[in-house]
């Protein structure tokens, strides 16, 4: 029995029916425990004061914003090569979750930056990359919506995702070239992993796990939704033909 069998929509729905409750439970457990731990039971940083608590939201969401993109890239490739509908729909399902993560990373970063850098926004390469990512997610989602035919939309968005990934790397390099940036300097005490004390580290790990689980859960739910929407569209179309 190969992995590809899960590319069958029925099989996919049946399987996720079983595992989804566990994912929900894991997500809620990790997030609640991690965030409460981080917010209430960690000490302040000696330089940044209590703002360091934002890290439990900022870093996990930043990680997931990028990982969502990678997942969409892989799913798009699978669609283009093997043409499994579930794969294309999973890519579609991941985009809104990814954009939410990007938004959290940007907003928490901005809130963090206000006291530390003295202003909410600076044209730092890392921040700019995320703004770029945000724009790209929007273009991707709008392109999905602008095309009526599902297969056409899947093809177009997959091509966009592939080409966009190449340009994402290019842009990242371009931003570094263009502006040396604030992000690194301002966070010296945290940026080197060796400097992250265990008191910060464990709740952070838990939060990262929580965000990963949250992402997976939401993508599964949304993929199921897209599958159903796709089937509904097919049924309605068929109905009309008779």
């Amino acid at each position, binding site marked *: 029995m190969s992995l590809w069998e899960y590319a069958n929509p029925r099989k996919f729905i049946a399987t996720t029916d079983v595992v989804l409750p566990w994912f929900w439970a894991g997500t809620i457990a990790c997030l609640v425990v991690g965030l409460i731990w981080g917010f209430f039971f960690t000490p302040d940083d000696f330089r940044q004061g209590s703002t360091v608590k934002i890290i439990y939201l900022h870093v996990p969401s930043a990680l997931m914003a990028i990982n969502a993109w990678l997942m969409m890239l892989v799913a798009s490739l699978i669609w283009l090569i093997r043409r499994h509908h579930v794969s294309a729909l999973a890519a579609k399902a991941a985009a809104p979750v990814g954009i939410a993560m990007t938004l959290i990373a940007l907003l928490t970063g901005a809130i963090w930056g206000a006291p530390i850098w003295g202003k909410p926004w600076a044209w730092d390469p890392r921040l700019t990359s995320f703004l*770029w990512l945000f*724009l*790209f997610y*929007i*273009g991707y989602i*709008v*392109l999905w919506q*602008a*095309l009526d*035919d599902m*297969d*056409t939309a899947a*093809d*177009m968005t997959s*091509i*966009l995702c*592939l*080409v*966009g990934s190449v*340009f994402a790397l*290019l*842009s990242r*390099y*371009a*931003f570094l*070239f*263009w502006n040396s940036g604030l992000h690194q300097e301002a966070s010296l005490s945290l940026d080197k992993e060796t400097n992250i004390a265990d008191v910060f580290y464990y709740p952070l790990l838990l939060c990262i796990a929580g965000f990963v689980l949250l992402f997976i859960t939401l993508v599964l739910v949304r993929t199921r939704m897209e599958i159903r929407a796709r089937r509904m569209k097919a049924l309605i179309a068929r109905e009309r033909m008779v």
Partner: protein
Amino acid sequence: MIAILTRDLRLAIRSGGGFGLSLMFFLIVVVLTPFAVGPEPQILSPIAGGILWLGAMLACLLSLDRIFALDYEDGSLDLLATAPIPMEGIVTVKALAHWLTTGLPLTLAAPAFGLLLDLPFSAFGLLTLSLALGTPALSMIGTFGAALTVGIKRGGLLLSLLVLPLYVPTLIFGAEVVRRGIEGLSIAPALMMLAGITAGSIALIPFAAAAAIRVGLR
């Protein structure tokens, strides 16, 4: 292939302007900028190179949606798709025609516009060089965006949305060449990147764009 090129150029000229129009748009952006930000040279001078690059990009952008839209609407694209010419070739030629009617005139005219915006004299050569290297990438990437949105009515704005993030690296390196040139810093890396982006887009994007068109015609 040459047939498509000559036809596109002829169409561009017939429908009032062709080469002239993108130039005009460029001129207008350049003229409006002092109205918007104020006419003082100490404000204009440092941003001149950037504004010129921005204007070139926008002039490019404004003309993108017509690369395929007209051919799609009147059915020519269907017919071209069944003609004995690879779609990759069609896409490349279309991008070339677009560059000839926008990028090339902009590049040639840029020094004159630099004058209007108080661009430091030392930067004129660099501006032309960077535009010459960079605008082919703009046309090529734009053609890809136009191919993605072929068949979407009112796709103009969506097209800009898709294409602009892809324009970012070209814009950064292009403007950087001019800025670093003015400040006397080394410009070789930025120039190399610009050339690399252009070469890469010309080599790879035709395949992506051709695939997109085939999908869009269904």
